[in-house]
Each structure stands twice: as C-alpha cells, then as structure tokens.
C-alpha cells in the first residue's frame, strides 16, 4: 500500500481512448439556494481530459447541483467553471456543447428514436445526409440498429436509456454528464449498461462526469471518484485510493464495510489505546496531517481482520481486541462474522473462509490485524 498524500492534484488519466477529451475545471464553486447551508459549498475539482470522473455521495449532498452547474442549468453563486481553460460561467447551456443523460431518459415522446438522436444535429444545422449517417452509426454503437422508427414509449427502460445515450454523444460533445442514468433500471440491466457505458467511454474517448449514490457502481466505472458530503468534496481519488486510503471517517464508512474504533482526542504516538487495548501505529497509516491530533478513529476493513482462539495465537506485532461472535452470515464463498468487540461490545465484522473452521454465536475470540492494514482517519 502506497501513500498518496495529495490525491486531488493528480489524475491517473483516462483508461484508454483518444486523448481528445475536455478538461473541466471547477474553481471554488458555490451554489446557495438560500437554505440553511449552501447546496454546493466552495468546491474545487479538476476533471482531466478523457477521464471518467464519478461524483459519489449520499442523496442531497450536492452532486446533481454540481452537474447542473457544469451543464449551465443553474447559475453560480460564487466561483467559476472552465472548459479546456475557457471560462464558461456565463455561457448558456445550449452553447456549452455538453451531452447530458438523465435518470428519467428525457426522450422527446413526440419524436421517433431516429428523430430523437438527430435532434442535437438538427440544432447544429448538420446536413441531412450527414445526420442519417451519424444517427445510423451511433445507433449501432448503442446496439439499437433497426429501431429508428419506434417511438420511445415502445421501448424498454434500458433501450430508452441507450437512445438517450446515443442522443447525448451523437454530436460529439465536449463532455458527457450523466445524472444517475441507471437509477431507474433493475439490477441486471444496470450492470449490463455499466459495461456498455464503460465500453462507449473507451471508444468515444471524451470526458465523462457520472453522478451516482451507489458506491459499487462508482467503483466499477470510474477512473477517479469525488466523494461528496454536505455540499463539500470529502476526498478525490481512484477507487482503490478511496477504499484503501480513506482520509476521513465519512469516506471509510461510505465505501465498503469497515470496523471503526473511535479514539477521541488521542495523541497519535507509536501506540494508541482503545478500550484497554494498546495498539501499534504504522505512521504510513495515518491519514490526517501529522500535527492534527483531535478526534481520530482507527479503521480496519473486514477482510483484513483475522480471528484467533486466544491471545497466544495472535502473531507478534499485531493489534488485537477481544470479541464475541454475535451472528454468522453465510455469503457463499466466505462467511461474515458479526462481532461484539471490546468491553463495550462495539459492532464489528470480519470475513472467514470455510477452511478456518466453524464459528457459533457466543464464541469468545480475539480479533487481530496487522498495523499496516489499519487506517487512522479524522473522525
């Protein structure tokens, strides 16, 4: 595990595709609707050309507002937005040349599939023959050849969203903005369309900004994720970075399961104490700035937690805590033990393989992990 202290400044770059995408730069962007708190609060984010960037976060955290600010559907309260270095803060949406995909598809019900897809080309005064060629091409890309004359209401949800996708990319926009485009689809269809969106991103090579509240979807699709919380960006990084190196408790809890031990106002020296246990700290696992001591927490992923019958079975140098089995969940290839840890019985979880023997509710164990596997974050 490597440390990347400043994940916001660096991009891992586009996965593949032509390097023809557009850079989107948000500089200290704020949107205030006059509610208790701004919907988007002083956000700075640079989306690299050709990058698949996901805005992830709970409902109401400001993702849609941010996307609408980029699209130009909302006006900025403060800050600026630039496309490829050109400030577009005052450019109306129809002149920003961005493709947009909505959760409800937003297909024009009075137009056929082909007319829907041709719409942005007509608005750009593209010639008839050119329109026919491009529409056929893009319908093939989304695997809807032959449905030209259908009306949207004759298509399934997944097909409608593919028409919307075709319509959003046919005019080769600067970037594609997707607001929970798969939210209305069932699980299987969603996963199929995820694959398709990734493929199209590779083939088209333009910048994608994807909004979702589904962390699994974000992990699957993204080059980088910007994690939103209460109108602010909590952390930006690759899916691996966010999962393995969370900087805050919010990030650790939002992406995947974690065991969280809140330390309170502990001094982060070589050791920390929790519930009578003394744990070793690996300096590389401290996410917060070294000077910050206030309120931190130890985070350990379930797959990094091992169980032993007693203290004697714990390897030297590992951090350990007393635990009681509260429940056993059978997950197929592995089982999850739900634990009560420490004297206070803090809920925790770990994964065990069938080879590790049987566990029953009420078993007293010792849970342990290596100091390198834990993460110390701001709580």
């Amino acid at each position, binding site marked *: 595990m490597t440390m990347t202290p400043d994940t916001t400044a660096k991009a891992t770059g586009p996965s593949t595709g032509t390097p023809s995408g557009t850079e989107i730069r948000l500089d200290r962007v704020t949107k205030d609707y006059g509610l208790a708190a701004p919907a988007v609060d002083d956000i700075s984010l640079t989306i690299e050309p050709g990058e698949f960037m996901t805005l992830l976060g709970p409902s109401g955290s400001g993702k849609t507002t941010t996307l609408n600010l980029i699209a130009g559907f909302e006006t900025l309260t403060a800050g600026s937005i630039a496309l490829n270095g050109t400030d577009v803060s005052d450019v109306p949406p129809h002149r920003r040349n961005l493709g*947009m995909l909505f959760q409800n598809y937003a297909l024009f019900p009075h137009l056929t599939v082909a007319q829907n897809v041709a719409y942005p080309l007509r608005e750009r005064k593209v010639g008839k023959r050119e329109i026919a060629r491009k529409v056929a091409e893009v319908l093939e890309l989304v695997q809807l050849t032959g449905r030209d004359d259908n009306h949207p209401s004759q298509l399934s949800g997944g097909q409608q969203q593919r028409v919307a996708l075709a319509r959003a990319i046919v005019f080769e926009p600067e970037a594609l903005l997707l607001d929970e485009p798969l939210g209305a689809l069932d699980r299987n269809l969603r996963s199929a369309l995820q694959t398709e969106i990734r493929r199209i991103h590779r083939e088209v090579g333009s910048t994608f900004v994807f909004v979702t509240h589904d962390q699994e979807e974000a992990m699957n699709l993204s080059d980088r994720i910007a994690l939103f919380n209460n109108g602010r960006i909590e952390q930006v990084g690759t899916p691996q970075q966010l999962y393995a190196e969370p900087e805050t408790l919010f990030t650790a809890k939002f992406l995947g399961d974690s065991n969280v031990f809140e330390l309170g106002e502990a001094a982060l020296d070589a050791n920390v104490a929790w519930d009578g246990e003394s744990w070793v700290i690996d300096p590389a696992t401290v996410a917060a700035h070294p000077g910050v001591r206030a309120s931190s927490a130890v985070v350990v992923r379930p797959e990094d937690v091992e169980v032993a019958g007693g203290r004697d079975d714990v390897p030297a140098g590992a951090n350990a805590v007393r635990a009681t089995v509260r429940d056993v969940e059978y997950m197929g290839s592995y089982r999850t033990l739900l634990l009560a840890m420490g004297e206070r019985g803090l809920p925790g979880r770990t994964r065990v393989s069938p080879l590790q023997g049987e566990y029953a509710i009420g078993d007293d164990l010792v849970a342990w992990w290596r100091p390198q596997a834990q993460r110390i974050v701001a709580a």
Partner: protein
Amino acid sequence: MSSNKIKWSSWPLLVPALALLAGILLVPLADTFIRSVSAPGTYTNLLTDGVTMTVLWRTVVTAATVTVAALLIGYPYAYLMTRVSPRARGILLVIVLIPFWTSVMARNFAWIIILQDGGPVQSLFAFFGAEDVVLYGSTAGVTIAMTQVMLPFMVLPLFSTLGGIDRRLLLAARGLGSSPTAAFWKVFWPLSRGGVMAGVILVFTLSLGFYVTPALLGSPQESLVAQLLAQRTTLLLDFAAAGALGMVVLVVTLVLVAWANRMGGTVSAIGVVAASPPKDR
C-alpha cells in the same frame, strides 16, 4: 391503448345512457333531418337566398376569431397556471371560471354597460385617440364577450395538457443545443398540441351556437346562425328551412372535429386529450 376487452357483463351499464341519447338526440335529429328533406328545395334555397350563406359565413368567421383570441389569451394563462403555487393556481382558476358561474343575462347586461357608447372601454379607446370605435351593437363587441365566456373551455384542457408535460424535456433540449425559444417550439409546443386541439374544437363548436350574446350585444343587421334559426322556427315557422340550416351547421362541426381528431388525437367530452402519451414522466 389497453388491449383488455370490456367484459360482456358490463355492457348493460351503458343502457341508461344509450336510452337517454336515443330519446333526446337521435330521434329529434332524425326528425329534423326528415323534415329538412321532405319539403322541396330547402337546401338549394339556403345556398341561393343570399342571407343564409352570409350569416353562416359571418358565424364561422366570428367563431374562428373567438377561438384564436381564446387561444392567444388562454395558452399563456394556462401555462402560468402550471408554474405558480397551488394557492395562486386556485385563484387563477376562479378568475377564469367566474363568467361560468354568472347568469347569462347578468353577464351580457354587464357587457352592455362596459361596451356601450360612452362606456369605459370606449372611453379608453378615445383616450388613446381612437374616437370612433363602436363596440356595442357590433360584431367586435360580440366577439369580446364571447371570448370571455369561452375562455374556460380553452384554459381547462390546455392546463391539463401543459401541466402534464415533463419540464425536464426542456432542460434536455437546452442541453442538446436549443435556445429557450427553440426548446419551446420544438418540444413544448408539439407536446401541447393535443390540448390546443381540444380547446380549439370546444371553443369553435360552442361559438357556432351562440344566441343570447349576439342578440343582446350585436346588431340585428349582423345576426349569427342561431338568431337566424330562432327566427325561422319561432317567427316564420319554417321548420324545413330551419332543419336544413341546423343540418348544415352540424356537418360543418363534424367536419371540423374529424379534421382536428386527425391532427391532434382523440378528443374526449371534457376536452382532455390522449395524444400518444409519454409513458414515463
């Protein structure tokens, strides 16, 4: 749209309505038709007496003017209704329905006072330099008063149609490169066409049959079809000619409804239109 066949057992539910329609519509209609063709030359007289065709044409022009005026006023009004708070919407609805709840006579006498020579409207025109505008006793005055009464028939179907249009489609259009004006004409307007057609048909067909308003506000020299009909039935007792005239008006109306149906979808009695509806919104 639904492919469900109506069960045979539910057909008896239609019997009362069908019986009523047969009694008050089909039988009198057949009677009128038979009378109109039993006397020789009624229809050729209509075309050649020099009065009927003039009045019929004037009626159609008046009804068309009322329809266009109601659409021009009603469309923005209905649009506004879809955009304001429920409270304000209620108030707007009441305003448009007030002439509906007022007695025909009270309403028309009110218009006489407003439109008469030296009345407020004429004074207003005079104030802006148009000294010789005559409204009371003219087709213009009749048109104004009729438009007011017809407004709810335009506003209500429009309101229901415009309110059902997904406004996110406008955002989508903007994102795809349409200016606000283009987004309106290419997306919003076509989607509102069903409501427009419903309103147009209701207002136009109802306007063809106005009697009290032109009788009170208009001039006897500029009568409309309903007055002509009344004259032929109550004064001249020429039921064959009156029946023929009625038949002509009916045919004009049916032709219009058929045309509008092809243009804008199926019109139901209350004017709510089911034109290829968007499935998801």
